[in-house]
């Protein structure tokens, strides 16, 4: 005898099996593309550097040691690796500033698009995504063309006579931030748009009806309701900005390194793969903590029911 309970239990088991089976492609992809490389990087960070790059297959904590400390090549005295802290600090600072600027420019842009007639929105979105079709390196060089000493801005200001000598904008933190804001702006606009598009604008009307000012409506109704979009956009901008490589390389010159450049240096000229791997893992950890902190705070300060 097969009872209905047995049948439903069997069906449940089969369902679970099917679920695993159906999600297998995604799981394999995640394993191969995400977890796998991370494990390799983590493994390399605990190996000794080879003479011409690469690694020697022996356990060593030297890589991790070098993240925090530097050993003098002549007398082996140990001091804190100030340069690393400086570069990490600059990276966090610039990535944070980039996120803020992307939010400041991206929010009105997304709001503008979301409030257009539905058939016009796709055109605006299309315009926003056009820069994505161009190589990032080329876009970065284009920025250089605008801000370098003989570039558009300086030439114009000199011609008008506002300045007598070109303003040094290239190879500064400002240049890096400007470049990153430009490059990552669409990553902010798109999730913000996705949230704003779902926003019920009748709530905005209700806000005005209940005596809220424009700012009141923005602050108390729109922003709390599109918070998921703000969080998503901020993460999408902050994370790649933090590990940005091309932009600081081109616009920051050799002096203003960011973490991405520092890591590249270890795998290239530095020939210290374990240090590079350890720096990479450190970066991942920083990103993880920053995200945890941000998401927790963002959801706490909002309404209890939403988000």
């Amino acid at each position, binding site marked *: 005898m097969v009872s209905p309970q047995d049948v439903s239990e069997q069906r449940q088991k089969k369902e679970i099996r099917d679920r695993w089976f159906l999600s297998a492609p995604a799981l394999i992809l995640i394993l191969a593309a995400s977890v796998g490389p991370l494990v390799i990087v983590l493994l390399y960070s605990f190996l000794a550097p080879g003479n011409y790059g690469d690694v020697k297959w022996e356990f060593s904590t030297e890589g991790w040691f070098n993240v925090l400390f530097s050993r003098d090549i002549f007398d082996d005295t140990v001091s804190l690796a100030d340069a690393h802290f400086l570069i990490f600090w600059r990276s966090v600072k610039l990535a944070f500033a980039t996120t803020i600027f992307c939010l400041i420019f991206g929010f009105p842009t997304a709001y503008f698009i979301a409030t257009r007639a539905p058939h016009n929105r796709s055109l605006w979105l299309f315009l926003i995504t056009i820069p994505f079709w161009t190589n990032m390196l080329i876009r970065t060089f284009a920025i250089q063309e605008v801000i370098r000493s003989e570039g558009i801005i300086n030439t114009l200001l000199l011609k008008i006579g506002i300045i007598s000598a070109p303003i040094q904008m290239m190879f500064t933190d400002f240049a890096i931030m400007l470049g990153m804001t430009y490059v990552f702006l669409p990553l902010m606009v798109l999730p913000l748009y996705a949230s704003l598009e779902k926003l019920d604008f009748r709530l905005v*009307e209700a806000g005005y009806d*209940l*005596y809220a000012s424009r700012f009141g409506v923005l602050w108390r109704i729109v922003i709390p309701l599109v918070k998921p979009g703000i969080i998503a956009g901020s993460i999408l901008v902050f994370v790649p900005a933090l590990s940005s490589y091309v932009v600081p390389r081109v616009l920051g010159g050799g002096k203003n390194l960011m973490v991405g450049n520092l890591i590249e240096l270890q795998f290239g000229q530095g020939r210290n793969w374990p240090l590079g791997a350890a720096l990479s893992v450190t970066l991942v950890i920083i990103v993880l903590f920053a995200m945890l902190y941000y998401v927790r705070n963002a959801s706490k300060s909002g*309404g209890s029911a939403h988000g």
Partner: protein
Amino acid sequence: MTDTRTTAAHGGAIGLHGIKKWFGTFQAVDNVSLDIRSNEFFTLLGPSGCGKTTLLRMIAGFELPTEGQVLLDGVDISRLLPNQRPVNTVFQNYALFPHLTVAENIGFGLKMLGKPKSEIDSVVKDMLKLVHLDGRGNNPVTQLSGGQQQRVALARALAPRPKVLLLDEPLSALDLKLRKSMQMELKRLQLETGITFVFVTHDQEEALTMSDRIAVMSTGTVRQVGSPWDIYDRPAERFVADFIGETNFLEAEVISVSGEKARVRLSSGAEINATYPEGITPKGKVTIVVRPEHARLGSSGSGMLEGVLDDIVYLGTDNHFHVKVDGGSTFIVRQQNAKSGHCGFSEQERVSIAINDDVAQILRD
């Protein structure tokens, strides 16, 4: 609650003067002039697309009239922003703020007006009591039922003590039973607060039940303004008569006019008295309306119109008798089932219809 009553004892009077509203090439409102009195429950009634909601949105300030003026207590408010008008709206879909609690929703308007927290708290408490949601203040609005959300929306709009409360089909999303009880509730709130209510609906029964006065609208214009009784029993034109309730249209000829009544002859030759709308002097061929419940069915030869009983529709409380009147048209008679059992008539039988005294109304052309 006494507080609410005393401070808002005088609801605002709304004056609409020659309002026109164009959306591109579409004219939504065409030259509407209305006076909504203080403390009145006023209903804008009409089918969808008649311009009633647009009119309401112009009073609220969400739309600006292309032409004309909106007056509140005699002051022109046509160009003021919504947040500058002492007028609040209950939205059709409630438009409650999903990220705020019940109490935060209700207190939102007062907070935006910069009222001190102690005052907001006490008003919110009063409002929760007023709409029977005591103790639900800290609930998220998303966890409330439709009827409860409706009451929060009402409380939110009433809390800042507006001079006029605008209601945009607020009951349309509720089921029949809830709608009935909310109708009584709205009427009670209007009486208790003394606030002028402007109510938009396409439901004629809702309008008749609650309103002090009704404006029937169609294609951007106001067709008739009057008490529910006026609108139902004395429709001025075919659209109004047709839109509200069931009705019978009859061709007739005016014989004489004396005072407020006219003597008309029906196609069968029978003569009856009929009232007529203000502003016209009926003469010649006219159309008159008779409500189904204002006529009686009798055996053949006893009434004013003769015909064949085509169909009997049993509705529980009533029977609807569809009579094919000699000469073509169908006349519906509605009779209450005062006794149980068979109504006494059978289909295809020859019957006659008697029209009660003083119930017929002549329509404007």
